């Protein structure tokens, strides 16, 4: 301690000022009577100015994640084994966008390219639907989307995490998402959208099919390594058009 009558000794002051150099530091009065500690305080405060400058790194523009609807909450993070370094929705959306660019391959002649392209473009416009979640949509939600335009569908074909009425080729159709083994799988139930034969849709990272089903068709698109065979069969069995 370098002076008398001070409430705090120099060591305690220096320890304190290193922990909290702000003006509210309770021992600040000590420096008024001790030149050495006053110099030390100035030194630490100058250091803090540089610390602040060093910490204030450049910040990239805010990129808002795709936010789920409030009613569709309980969205969970992608498990580790499914994650890439980018957020899952971004990777899926990007792969679908690529798929739209790459184009589609048809299983048979005369199939409708435009329908396939529109489906891919539509999925690309609703990336928020393609989330991994363990929460199913409510029965009310499912019924509200499926029943009016479709007829019936057994919702127990899988965990349906998204249900929305959308317009494909000028017709309102149910857009559903089922949680698959490799990621979310898109289903588009398209009554009145009749096609002659099955059409495969392939792109970077995604693949699927448009299946002719009675007086309409059903599109099923998932991650490229997802086995859709059983789901295709179950969907066909479970859907009954009301038209």
């Amino acid at each position, binding site marked *: 301690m370098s002076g008398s009558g001070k409430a705090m000794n120099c060591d305690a002051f220096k*320890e*304190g000022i*290193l*922990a*909290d*150099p702000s003006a*509210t530091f309770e021992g600040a009065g000590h420096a008024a009577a001790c030149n050495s500690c006053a110099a030390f305080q100035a*030194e*630490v405060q100058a*250091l*803090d100015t*540089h*610390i*602040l*400058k*060093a*910490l*204030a*790194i450049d*910040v*990239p523009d*805010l*990129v*808002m*994640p795709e*936010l*789920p*609807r*409030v009613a569709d*909450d*309980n*969205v969970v*993070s992608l498990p*580790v084994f499914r*994650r890439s*370094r*980018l*957020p899952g929705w971004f990777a899926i959306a990007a792969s679908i966008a690529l798929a739209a660019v790459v184009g589609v391959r048809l299983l048979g002649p005369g199939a409708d390219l435009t329908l396939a392209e529109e489906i891919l473009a539509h999925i690309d416009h609703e990336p928020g639907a393609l989330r991994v979640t363990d929460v199913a949509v409510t029965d009310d939600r499912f019924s509200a989307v499926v029943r009016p335009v479709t007829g019936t569908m057994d919702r127990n074909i899988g965990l349906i995490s998204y249900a929305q009425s959308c317009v494909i080729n000028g017709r309102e159709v149910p857009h559903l998402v089922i949680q698959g083994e490799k990621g979310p799988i898109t289903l588009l139930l398209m009554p009145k959208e009749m096609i002659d034969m099955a059409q495969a849709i392939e792109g970077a990272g995604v693949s699927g099919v448009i299946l002719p089903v009675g007086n309409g068709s059903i599109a099923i698109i998932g991650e490229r390594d997802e086995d859709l065979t059983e789901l295709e069969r179950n969907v066909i069995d479970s859907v009954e058009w009301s038209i």
Partner: protein
Amino acid sequence: MNEIDADRERRKRFDRVAGVFHQDMYRYATWLSRNPDVAEEVVQEALLRAWKSLDALREDEAAKPWLLTIVRRENARYFERKRLETVDIDNLTPAQSAMLAETDDQETDDIRQAIFRLEDDYREPLVLQVLMGYSTKEIAEMMGMQQGAILTRLHRARLKLKDDVEREAAR
């Protein structure tokens, strides 16, 4: 208020809160992880979690510590999931190198590198105090520690930085 209006209001509130504190979230996440790439991912996850639990935020005035706490948890979850070890200072990613890129202020550059080398236990309270402006009492609450322990860490953090700077100056 109908459901659509309520959703719109909720979104407006979230945009406002996230817009104001996004920079703080990113900087905090970056200094926690010492990796800008990881920080971006952590902030995305944190924003998503904040959106889902926005109703838990009673007053917007409390948004900053609320968001930073979410960032802190998301960062811990990230490293838990990835099982990442400490940063290898001799093998930096391009993003980390860019973060430590030299500016026209040598002393700030030296301190930034010194902060980068600090142990996590020392770096985090320092960021919360100097960059975020929290008192030692508030930091103790955020980190779930005694105030005395925070004071000790802050004291040691500055002492290390001070020594580093003096060592650099003596070269």
